[in-house]
């Protein structure tokens, strides 16, 4: 006779001390169910680095580029136009850099004699790239809001569909039951008295 098959799974068991808190009895009694901990307020530890908590007074999602870095694009309204302008500015500056590097590398720049022309041009290109990334990042909150909107729509549609289907099923069930009762009434002979 073969020994009965041992129930095994490829995955380790879930933490039993945690799961036992959520047994059916506990839930029906509403007995001190563990709530998820609330989001942390204030500074916390992120990958070994201390991070300040989210400051709700400032628009921290989009830190201002003017804090450390010069803002190059002029009108933040026309995102597409400014992005394209930045893109072509990068290309033209690159051509300038090539020209500088091919002619003479060590010419001091006209604006500030400390750095060479090449370094000045490199700094300008770096500034342009930082600006273009910052402009793209400024679009992120809008993207997040739109994603949220789409998710809410989908949830709403799904819930409406489910409740409608369930309702129609219930109606059908009630109809079937009623017809069964009526046919039963026909079968049972009427008892006098």
């Amino acid at each position, binding site marked *: 006779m073969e020994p009965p098959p041992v129930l095994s799974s490829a995955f380790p068991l879930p933490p039993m001390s945690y799961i036992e808190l959520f047994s059916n009895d506990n839930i029906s009694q509403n007995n001190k169910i563990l709530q998820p901990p609330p989001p942390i307020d204030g500074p916390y530890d992120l990958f070994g680095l201390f991070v300040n908590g989210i400051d709700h007074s400032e628009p921290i999602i989009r830190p201002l580029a003017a804090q450390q870095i010069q803002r190059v694009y002029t009108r933040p309204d026309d995102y597409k136009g400014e992005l394209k302008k930045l893109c072509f500015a990068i290309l033209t500056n*690159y051509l300038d850099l090539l020209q500088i590097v091919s002619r003479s590398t060590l010419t001091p720049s006209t604006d500030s004699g400390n750095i060479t022309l090449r370094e000045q041009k490199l700094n300008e290109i770096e500034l342009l790239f930082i600006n273009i990334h910052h402009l793209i990042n400024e679009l992120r909150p809008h993207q997040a809001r739109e994603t949220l909107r789409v998710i809410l729509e989908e949830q709403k549609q799904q*819930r409406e569909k489910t409740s409608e289907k369930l309702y129609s099923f219930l109606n059908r*069930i009630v109809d079937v039951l009623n017809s069964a009762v009526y046919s039963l009434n026909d079968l049972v002979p009427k008892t006098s008295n």
Partner: protein
Amino acid sequence: MSDRLTQLQDVVNLLADHLCNATGVLQETARPSRFGDFEQNSTTTTNSNVDNNGDDYSRLFASLITRTTSELVALIDSLPAIPSTEDDLLEQHAQLELLEQENIETTSRLEQTTELAEYLLEQVQTCLQSLSQALLDERKKFPQGQ
């Protein structure tokens, strides 16, 4: 496939990579340039940038950079309209709040329907139970099908 903004940022980084690689490779593989008036012994006939292997790096990098730039411009054009004024932001906010409200309503309706379904289930189960009990009792009373 990542979202469009991440794609955009990836293409920008790719452009930066191309620019850096182009300068590096062209500098490495460039033929020595001529001095102004100084006469050189080896007078070369061709003046192109073609490498020993016949690879024209400058043309290759030029095409790479222009292709990346056109990709970038196409991606920028494909971005949807983005609200930038205060009114648009308020409208978006109002839409989100309305959606949340509707979501709560549909949830409560779904919960109600589920409760109704559970109640019906209970009723049907008790009916079935009493029916089967009655059948068993009848069969016990008349064991031989009389």
